[in-house]
């Protein structure tokens, strides 16, 4: 075997066998698919049938020990006391200045047993935050493989596959189960804003799970997808991505580029009243005293059809921001974007101008069109939580 520069995920053999597009990228040291056979089909599988996406490269930290709950409460901005065992919590975590280091999903597996799912490496920060606390923090990324099954038929397919109890599994809840006598954790979570589940298994069971899922899903147009289709879905769902829609406080070179949860529209996930101190609380309290946040991360609906990638936004002649993610949404039939803009322009309904540069037959054309601030998510079907 030739020297390998990128690691293969536990599902790689199965994915590579059907990845006729041969379009790969790197994700946390792994080789992963951008698209397997065409992005459009994959996107519509997410919205109309069921999609399968390999999320094994996610970084997972297991947090245990007598002080585990106290420690997690110190780390994140939400109130751990309100997170039940078997619940999943989407939450940001901040640095001393109340600027977001990252956002991720926390699974509460037990009273003093947590799993934190993150896109970036955080072990150094977690261990330093744990100083003086009786906790053990381990990077268990390589011990858990994950497959995300998302779309209106996701539940139907998984039930057909033989996973019991899914009807009762509420949005953002977890279940520990077994299938073919193999352990499996099912979480009703995902990055598509649609009905969906994530299946977490031992890496050695990856091929087994893939084959079982594909067999059960054959009748339902279950389609493996790559990151490009997922990215479309997550923008429609209004989910933000670290180092795309905001720069992690750990990586930002200029302090002005760091963002607080309030500046990212995550104020709802900050509990300033919870017991005890959490990292960044003093700074966030001070920020709360000031009237409007300096910056805001908002949704935009844009006139015309040209995706407003890296586009500047204007209020009259004043430049007030920039888009961070932008697509034409096939489901909504709308031109949408996530944008970082000045705090005083963030009220939904605010009409702004946007300058879009787009290629047209070897020329770059500029179009100046209108746009308006709207609530995120752009797309939020009732079935997501039903």
């Amino acid at each position, binding site marked *: 075997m030739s020297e390998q520069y990128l690691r293969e995920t536990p599902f790689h053999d199965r994915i590579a066998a059907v990845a006729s597009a041969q379009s790969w990228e790197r994700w946390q040291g792994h080789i992963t698919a951008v698209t397997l056979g065409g992005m459009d089909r994959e996107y519509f599988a997410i919205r109309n049938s069921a999609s399968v996406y390999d999320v094994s490269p996610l970084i997972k930290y297991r947090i245990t020990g007598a002080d585990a709950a*106290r420690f997690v409460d*110190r780390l994140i901005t939400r109130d751990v006391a309100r997170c039940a065992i078997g619940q999943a919590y989407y939450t940001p975590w901040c*640095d*001393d200045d109340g600027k977001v280091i990252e956002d991720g999903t926390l699974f509460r597996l037990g009273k003093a047993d947590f799993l934190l799912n993150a896109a970036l490496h955080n072990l150094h*920060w977690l261990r*330093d*935050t744990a*100083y*003086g*606390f009786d906790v053990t923090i381990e990077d268990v990324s390589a011990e858990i493989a994950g497959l995300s099954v998302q779309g209106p038929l996701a539940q139907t397919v998984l039930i057909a596959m033989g996973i019991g109890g899914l009807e009762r599994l509420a949005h953002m809840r977890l279940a520990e189960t077994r299938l073919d006598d193999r352990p499996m954790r099912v979480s009703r979570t995902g990055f598509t804003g649609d009905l969906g589940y994530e299946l977490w298994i031992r890496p050695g069971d990856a091929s087994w799970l893939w084959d079982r899922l594909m067999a059960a899903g054959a009748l339902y147009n279950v389609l493996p997808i790559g990151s490009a289709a997922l990215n479309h879905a997550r923008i429609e769902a209004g989910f933000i991505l670290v180092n795309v829609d905001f720069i992690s406080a750990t990586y930002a070179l200029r302090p002005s580029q760091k963002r607080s949860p309030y500046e990212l529209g995550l104020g709802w996930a900050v509990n300033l009243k919870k017991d*005890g*101190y959490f*990292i*960044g*609380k*003093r700074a966030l*309290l001070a920020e709360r005293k000031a009237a409007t946040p300096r910056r805001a991360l908002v949704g935009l609906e844009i006139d015309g059809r040209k995706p407003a990638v890296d586009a500047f936004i204007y209020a009259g002649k004043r430049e007030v921001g920039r888009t961070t993610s932008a697509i034409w949404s096939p489901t909504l039939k709308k031109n949408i974007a996530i944008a970082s803009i000045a705090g005083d322009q963030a009220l939904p309904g605010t009409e702004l101008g946007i300058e879009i540069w787009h290629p047209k037959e070897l020329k770059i054309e500029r179009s100046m069109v209108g746009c308006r601030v709207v609530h995120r998510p752009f797309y939020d079907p009732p079935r997501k939580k039903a």
Partner: protein
Amino acid sequence: MSGETHYDAIIVGGGHNGLVCAAYLGTAGLKVLVLEAAAQLGGAAVTREFHPGYRASAVAHLLHLLHPRVIADLKLTQHGLAFAATDLPTTALLPDGDRLTLAADPAASRTALARFSPHDAEALPAFTERFNRLAAALGRFLLKTPPQISAAQWQDRRTLLEFALSLRRLGRRDMRELTRIIGMNAADLLDDNFESDALKGVFALDSVLGGFLGPKSPNSVFNLLYRAAGNVAGRQNGLIQPKGGMGAVTAALASAASAAGVELRTGAPVEWIRIADGRAVGVVLESGREISARHILSSADPRRTFLTLVGPEHLDTGFVRHVRGIHMNGCAAKIHLALDGLPEAWQADPEMTAGRLVVAPSIDFMERAFDDAKYGRVSEAPALEVTVPSLHDSALAPAGGHVLSIVAQFAPYQLRETVAEAARDQIAARVLAALGTVAPDLPDRVRAQEVLTPQDLERQFRLTGGHWHHGEMSLDQVFLLRPVGGFQQYRTPIDGLYLCGAGAHPGGGVSGAPGANAAREVLKDHKLPRAA
């Protein structure tokens, strides 16, 4: 709580800085309580009996930094502060029995030094004059609050401006010289100016006293500047033997504090500081008793204050990281010897013996002593600073007897492969051996000894890392960066909690400056309307 008194300010620790701070706050009309863990006030600045009839200053034994404004403001002279001797000469005791005495009188020093090097005899006065001038420029900031760099406050801007002006006022050549030497190592500076090992050895010792560095370590010159920045009894860089030892200095401070209405309580160790809604609201004693106050001031070192008394759970990760990173590897051991008489050669020269005696014959000797410490060992051949306080104050020893008070470098707190008990035996034996080389009849006159390693200092005086200065006095940990960057103005991340000890600007030494500066900042906040 019925009948419980509420205080304006509680000061954790009754050392010299805690007492200075208390006296200032009391004078300003605040109701102040000082809580000292030990049975005696004074913290590390106390005079203790270590053998029946023999007493010595437990840690620092010479005064050179106590700020004249603190003496004047608190009227310490009226409260009993007296100097047994000022302008003490320093004598280098050399291995061959020779000596070099540097006295306050320049002519005498010049004659003494000429025997070793005519060149140095000529160079020393000019060097000293210029060095003191440069140090004095820094000395103007001992009693000022370091500014914030992002100076939004006009006060900060003014201090920054004053700092720049103070350097500029030195003139172009001196300003350039100060910026050139401030980060230098002492060995290079000394080699540039002098040729005599005996002279350079004395400076080399002063450049590392109390610290974890050698004369060839970066910014050891800064330690020399800091020593020279002080000005007590009208003399810059002068050495003073306080009457009654260091304990008498803190006794005068305690008296001044009492007179200002401060309540002083000993045997009252604070176990932790109560934080409610992000604000320090009181202290909890080891006895379980709780006392509340509007302002809590800690004269304990920053590591102990934040990591033990407050606890990391109330602090941000980055801040805790910085506090854990404060360098505080104490390296000085304190040794007290009870003698039944002085060595004959010393008796013959009472003027010399009454001064400061130094065993540090060369730069290389000092650096080798540090090499051991660098790798976690007690110095094979330690350098010594010796005083005989009983010569100035007969109350310190029985008739005929004498006390030797010795600072020995290096006995590092962070040991590798040596256990603390063995390190104590090693430093004791090596100090006696070193004294034997310069005064052969001395070891036989020792009746009793007390050996305080940094581990002992940590245990007895609650000094983290056994570090006298509550953190190394290096350029990365002074002025804007003391105790850590962003918190140099005595306030801490916790509202209502202040630092008033040596871990805050300007730093270690019996100066009273951190205490005085912290009191000034607390008084500013005291005038603000109370937070709801």
